[in-house]
């Protein structure tokens, strides 16, 4: 009922105001062009001091009804200086806008959708125009922010096209379970960006996140509210920054405007491996009568028994390739020679085809935009991909001059087909591909061509002379090894299923009533609602799960926000006041249901009803936040601005006796070039800004998580099995959201008529009361306990340099951004020095947050050193001796990030490229550990027969409690033993500097001249060559991409057989009618 009340009251208010407002107004029209006289489409026309506005059509024309009180029009457009034009009784006002690379006067969207001029902002925020996402595309638009905004660290996870992304702004704020991801707000509606699952130590797939729903063609702009100052009005949801997505809307125009965009790109695997191809499958064995490592010699399988029983299928410790006949996993004898690149044979050329049609039309008062878009993706892993359909409708209306209504509905349907398994092996075909020795051709693993990856039929077995060593019947997995977890890559791709569909509606309706030209009331209702439906299948006959397993899952999530705001905006002589108060009511509910089945009754018939053992799962969570907020901005003479804001949030999830938190902020900006006369003429503009704010993170406390409760969800022999519901985590009744306090200073300078600009920010952020799911001793009964004890700081600088070095027939625009963030873990639970995160499957490395060190250190067990001499300790065989304790080996998070954007325009040609870079981070490569253990990496050539010898020098146990000098040139057996143990005992050898420079994006566009199109209905046509991730210009990680993290969790810097790196390139075509 309350919801209805709000709407009713607002409607009543508006109706009451209509008669008064209808009276004296006038219609003004005109044309807005650029300096060359070309019409500008989409320029904003606003009656100063009101919310009355419109935008220009494709011909640059506009018509606007100016209320009686209006006497000035404000005309603005991206990249151009805003102009204020007195109406002075005119009915036709046209103007040419002058380009303004500084965008200083530009009206920008700030928190809660409030529009302000850039100069009024006392904090840093950055807007990226939608055109940056629509040519060279990413399926999830969050990934397209990489390198664009100083201080925004975007990591695309090595998990394939439908995977999730990790966007961290100004460093991680929490060590807790929340993912340090910003709040995404689409047209004023906070949307859910939940992560639906990540690969972990035991494998698994990246189940994607919320941002993949958004169609880049609908995006007008993305604004990154980086710090607490910019995001303060979002209170308890702002700690990780906020990204505002403004979608496109309609404008008044003659007839219907049609815009068509088609994009087709290819995707190819960028194989970064550089493995040895000299030695093939096999292992080291002792000739009869000998024992010990030193006499071992390499050997390959000469019988199928030898192959299987030695587990030689995935080991490259055999003899030198070139002579002899090897018996392989299927009993077939093949030449023991290098068979070529298996990646090339297995991976396909992916492609993504996106088509969007957008229609706009209507009058300046009532208009709409409708778009329909379809994306079809086939990934490089066979039989997988991602499809998406987006529909969007935006309708805006003004009634009776003072009453405006804006509605938007975005619908998306996403279908992810077969998200690949990563990390540990169950189902990870990518891993198997790495492990194939040089003498194996992956195509021999295909098996039954009608059922790829399955044991072929009896006839086919006979025809090809196959022996199925493990006796599996036709139709079950064609195994290559006794290791049941080694998945046949074809079986993984074609027989396993991990598919999901999400239907999602993001809808918002906003009504606004302007009482006067300085007082308005607005109300907004927004909803994000989706259903995610997944099917996961491990088919009957799979090696590690012969009975088979299946899950049917459904997740339904809905968040509704109701918000109202009363605003005041007036200038009294030299003092301007812009203030508002308002409230918000948030309710979120998430429910998930799952049906799980194991062991199919009828073989090879994957249906949940066919499962022999069935169980179900159910999860439910509901929470709410009520808020009141307000903001006052005062300005003196439009060059000195002072703003204060406050938001108080009441939480359902907290201790009811103490369930609210106040989030304050203040900021100031001073445009000294406007304040002082007599400054040098080369200084075009100068502004100083500062802010202080406190924000929080509500999602860090989930519903029902503050109490120890019990349930009996399992049964045994019909009896309930009770246990505590929080599993291994001990809840805390007094838990509250963590707080982030941030101070920021900045300066914004423009020189030489804005040809050169510098924007510099320094910030100092501190998280207090951080929620630590602190690792506690297993012996305490739990593995973790949620406590508000952590403190972490982030201090950093952000630079944005923009310039136009050439501005003639050729224009060259360049923009360089970079940011340095120093994080520091100040405190954890008393007495605790470190908090452990995730570990990779090698289980010798842990991501740890260590007091006095930056966030996210990589620690691992290392080779023991003689404390007296510092020399490395070896055992008698020359293998490393481990110290068994976790040493700090690196930092999984880069501290220096940035991007270089270049744009060259010559006549109708435009070339842009984006180079981005990161440094200061490291990555632990489990892939390299395993590939070294089993003789694949090139370094393992050392010590083999006929190769460079391997000599280890250090110390060894002297048998008397000390160490003695030791040096040994290893025999092939000892060398294989050395490489086999190196990763397990000395993980420091596999931590690499993850710095990189990448050529992230290139576009080359050609605008077909109007002359050519004049006889056609086409008004504009642009064709572009587009490419993403074309080249890695610099990296230090052998065999892997430095961006190989398999998880978007807080444990960054772990690589273990993730999705291979890819590059995409293709064409984009945009036509307007």
């Amino acid at each position, binding site marked *: 009922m309350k919801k209805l009340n709000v709407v009713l009251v607002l409607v009543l*208010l508006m109706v009451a105001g209509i008669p008064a407002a209808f009276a004296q107004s006038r219609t003004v029209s005109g044309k807005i062009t650029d300096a060359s006289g070309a019409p500008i489409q989409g320029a904003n026309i606003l009656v100063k001091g009101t919310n009355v506005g419109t935008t220009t059509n494709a011909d640059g024309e506009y018509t606007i009804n100016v209320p009686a009180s209006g006497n000035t029009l404000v005309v603005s457009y991206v990249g151009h200086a805003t102009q204020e034009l007195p109406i002075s009784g005119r009915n036709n006002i046209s103007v040419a806008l002058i380009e303004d690379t500084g965008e200083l006067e530009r009206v920008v969207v700030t928190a809660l959708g409030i529009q302000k001029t850039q100069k009024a902002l006392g904090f840093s925020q950055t807007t990226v125009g939608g055109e940056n996402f629509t040519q060279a595309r990413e399926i999830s638009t969050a990934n397209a922010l990489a390198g664009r905004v100083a201080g925004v660290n975007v990591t695309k996870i090595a998990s394939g096209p439908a995977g999730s992304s990790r966007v961290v702004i100004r460093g991680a704020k929490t060590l807790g379970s929340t993912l340090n991801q910003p709040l995404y707000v689409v047209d004023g509606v906070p949307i859910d960006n939940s992560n639906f699952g990540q690969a972990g130590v035991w494998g698994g797939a990246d189940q994607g996140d919320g941002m993949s729903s958004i169609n880049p063609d609908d995006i007008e702009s993305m604004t990154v509210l980086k710090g607490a100052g910019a995001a303060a009005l979002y209170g308890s949801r702002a700690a990780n920054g906020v990204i505002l997505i403004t979608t496109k809307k309609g404008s008044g125009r003659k007839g219907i405007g049609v815009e068509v965009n088609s994009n087709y790109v290819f995707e190819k695997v960028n194989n970064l491996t550089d493995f040895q191809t000299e030695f093939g499958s096999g292992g080291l064995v*002792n000739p009869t009568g000998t024992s010990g490592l030193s006499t071992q010699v390499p050997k390959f399988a000469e019988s199928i028994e030898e192959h299987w029983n030695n587990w030689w299928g995935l080991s490259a410790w055999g003899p030198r390739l070139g002579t002899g006949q090897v018996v392989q996993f299927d009993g077939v004898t093949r030449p023991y020679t290098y068979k070529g690149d298996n990646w090339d044979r297995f991976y396909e050329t992916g492609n993504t085809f996106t088509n969007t049609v957008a229609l706009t039309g209507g009058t300046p008062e009532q208009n709409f935009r409708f778009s329909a878009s379809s994306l079809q993706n086939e990934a490089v892993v066979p039989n997988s991909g991602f499809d998406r359909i987006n529909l969007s409708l935006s309708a805006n209306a003004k009634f009776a001059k003072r009453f405006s209504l804006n509605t938007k509905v975005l619908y998306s349907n996403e279908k992810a087909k077969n998200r690949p398994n990563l990390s540990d092996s169950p189902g990870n075909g990518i891993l198997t591909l790495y492990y194939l020795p040089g003498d194996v051709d992956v195509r021999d693993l295909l098996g039954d061509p009608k059922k790829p990856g399955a044991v072929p039929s009896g006839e086919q077995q006979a025809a090809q002379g196959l022996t199925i060593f493990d006796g599996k019947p036709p139709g079950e997995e064609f195994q290559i090894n006794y290791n049941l977890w080694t998945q046949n890559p074809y079986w993984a791709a074609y027989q396993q299923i991990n598919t999901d569909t999400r239907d999602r509606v993001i809808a918002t309706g906003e009504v606004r009533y302007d009482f006067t030209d300085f007082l308005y009331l607005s109300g907004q209702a927004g909803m994000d609602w989706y259903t995610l439906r997944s099917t996961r299948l491990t088919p009957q006959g799979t090696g590690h799960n012969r009975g088979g397993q299946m899950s049917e899952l459904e997740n339904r999530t809905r968040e509704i926000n109701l918000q109202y705001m009363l605003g005041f905006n007036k200038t009294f002589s030299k003092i301007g006041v812009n203030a508002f108060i308002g*409230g918000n009511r948030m309710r979120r509910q998430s429910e998930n249901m799952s049906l799980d089945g194991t062991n199919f009754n009828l073989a090879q018939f994957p249906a949940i009803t066919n499962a022999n053992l069935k169980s179900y799962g159910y999860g439910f969570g509901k929470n709410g936040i009520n808020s009141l907020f307000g903001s006052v901005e005062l300005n003196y003479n439009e060059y000195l601005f002072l703003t204060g804001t406050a938001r108080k949030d009441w939480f359902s999830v907290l201790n009811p006796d103490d369930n609210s938190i106040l989030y304050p902020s203040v900021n100031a900006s001073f445009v000294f070039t406007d304040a002082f006369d007599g400054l040098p003429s080369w200084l075009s503009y100068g502004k100083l800004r500062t802010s202080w704010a406190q924000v929080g993170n509500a999602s860090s406390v989930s519903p029902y998580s503050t109490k120890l409760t019990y349930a009996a969800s399992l049964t045994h*022999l019909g009896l309930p*099995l009770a246990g505590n519901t929080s599993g291994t985590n001990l809840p805390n009744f007094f838990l509250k959201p963590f707080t982030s306090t941030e101070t920021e200073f900045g300066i914004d300078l423009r020189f030489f008529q804005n040809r050169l600009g510098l924007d510099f920010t320094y910030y100092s952020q501190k998280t207090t009361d951080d929620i630590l799911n602190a*690792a506690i001793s*297993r012996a305490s009964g*739990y593995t973790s306990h949620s406590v508000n004890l952590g403190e972490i700081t982030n201090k950093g600088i952000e630079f944005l340099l923009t310039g136009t070095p050439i501005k003639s027939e050729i224009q060259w625009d360049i923009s360089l951004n970079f940011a340095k963030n120093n994080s520091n873990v100040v405190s954890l639970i008393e007495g605790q020095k470190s908090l452990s995160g995730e570990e990779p499957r090698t289980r010798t490395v842990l991501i740890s947050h260590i007091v006095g060190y930056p966030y996210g250190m990589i620690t691992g067990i290392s080779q023991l050193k003689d404390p007296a001499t510092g020399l490395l300790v070896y055992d008698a065989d020359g293998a490393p001796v481990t110290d068994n*304790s976790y040493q700090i080996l690196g930092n999984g998070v880069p501290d220096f990030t940035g991007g270089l954007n270049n744009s060259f325009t010559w006549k109708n040609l435009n070339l842009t490229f984006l180079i981005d870079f990161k440094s200061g981070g490291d990555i632990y490569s489990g892939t390299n550990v395993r590939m070294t253990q089993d003789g694949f990496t090139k370094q393992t050539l050392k010590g083999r027969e006929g190769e460079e010898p391997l000599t280890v020098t250090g110390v060894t146990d002297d048998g008397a409690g000390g160490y003695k000098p030791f040096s040994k040139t290893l025999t092939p057996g000892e060398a294989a033993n050395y490489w086999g143990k190196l990763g397990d005992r000395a993980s420091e050898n596999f931590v690499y500097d993850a710095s990189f420079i990448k050529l992230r994006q290139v576009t080359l566009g050609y605008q077909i001249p109007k002359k050519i199109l004049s006889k056609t209905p086409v008004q504009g046509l642009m064709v572009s060559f587009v490419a993403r991730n074309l080249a890695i210009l610099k990296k230090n990680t052998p065999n892997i991409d430095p961006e190989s993290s398999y998880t978007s969790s807080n444990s960054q810097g772990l690589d273990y057989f993730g999705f291979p790196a890819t590059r995409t390139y293709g064409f984009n075509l945009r036509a307007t009618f």
Partner: protein
Amino acid sequence: MKYIKRLIIGSSILGIIGAGVGCNTDELKGLNVDPQALDNVDPNFLFTSVELGTASGGTAGDNRYIDWRTNINFAAYAIQQLASTGGELGSRYVESGSTFESSNAPFEFIYGDQLKNISVIFKLTGPGGAYEGQFNNMVQASRILRVFLYHRLTDYYGNIPYFEAMQADSGVYFPHYDSQELIYQDLLNELDEATAAITDPTDALGEVELTAMSRADIIFNGDLDKWRRWGYSLMLRLGMRVADVKPDWANTYVAKAVAGGVMESNDDNVFIPTAEAPSLWTNQNGISRAFIPGDGGQSSLVSETLVNVLKGPNAASTADDDPRIMVLLGGIGAWTPDGFDPIAGGTDPLNQKGMPVGKTQNDLDAIEGHVVDQNLTYSRINPKLLDRAEPYMLMNYGEVELYLAEAAKRGIGGVDPGSAATHYNAGVKASMQMYTPYDASLTVSDQAVADYLAMFPYNDATALEQIGLQMWLNHYLNWWEAWSEWRRTGFPVLTPVNFPGNSTGGTIPVRLKYPGAEVGGNPNFAEGASPNDYTTRVWWDVD
């Protein structure tokens, strides 16, 4: 004026909305009640969880993990009943990435599941608890289970957190380590108190409580005599375990155990029933799952050491075979998800053949003189012992009699030295006849037992070795206990493997390592923990 009027109207309406939308928090408070959970739960339900969990860590939702990692992949190889060309730590004493899991599993599962649930039972029935003072017998049974779990833990690791453990909800997140000696002292005392505190119901309320317990108790269905007998049998086991380091404790508690009444027949055996459904991860037998082809799929091939013992001194004759030979062994042949498929003659006791321990495939090929197909060459565990719903044994009567035989032989606890042979014979008989619950066809006749004992009678001169060997055989499938007994007695004498690059200097590991998270994460670790290697003996393990 008109603006002011509108402003007043607008503001007052806003005020009304504000009261509803903004800070009205009563409704908010009502939102935070989980419709799927309770503040208190009937402790009997937790008791069932504890019992099931004590088999394979069941309720933690991954029942095959702990058996797979530690019982099989470590202990069964180390104690040389199974053999494999894999299994690094157990068969070759070589440390690698996956061997950490063998070491970690008991620490992670026993503390994190069963002991935690027991602590909740104590909290709910203790002072101030929702069930304060109720369910006395179930609480005493929980104490016995707690002793069983802690003694296993300390036997694997040595010093462990004990007195301060399980108190996270009182703010003890990093419990101190206690010496094994102090832990044993308390465990023995706990058994003393718990067995004494088991009370037959004397009133209607007591009957109601016992009815509730008998429903929840999947081990003994509330049979209090059986609980007492298990409690005293456990006291016997623990007493004997410290016999070499604390003879006076051994005397005291063995005597107490005998006086209190230990197990009397295989009917007293502690079996946890498992079930096929509803979830393979919770309800099934974890040992079976670890081996079942297409599930865990671990190699189920047995060792040469074991087969030679079962075949007796004359391998060419079945006359001197242990009657268990074709109970413990299924024969030679492939075991696939479709069933066990013996080779021709594969189930003939004469043809049984175990795999030499600690070998590589290459070694086996060299021994046999041809390329060996392990599955068709060596005997395997009887698949009839490895059904998905097989009962999971924690302790048995045969073991108790063998302890009594040893106590008699060594004169511990006042057990009549003259009764050693009787106890030995009873122990062997019970051990041989305890497999009927797995499969009716696995019954060994009284005659077969008698023939065996006639052929290999109790011999006072070699009694300890005989008892040790029988204990070793008794603990088939219960390899971690076999490993503990072997550490204590040194019997049977096993020849260690000396594999290149091993981590123990060629000796069988005598303890597990603590989990890395505990080593690095518990600030109290350095103070009282045992040396973190595989070669430092635990307190009771002396020559």
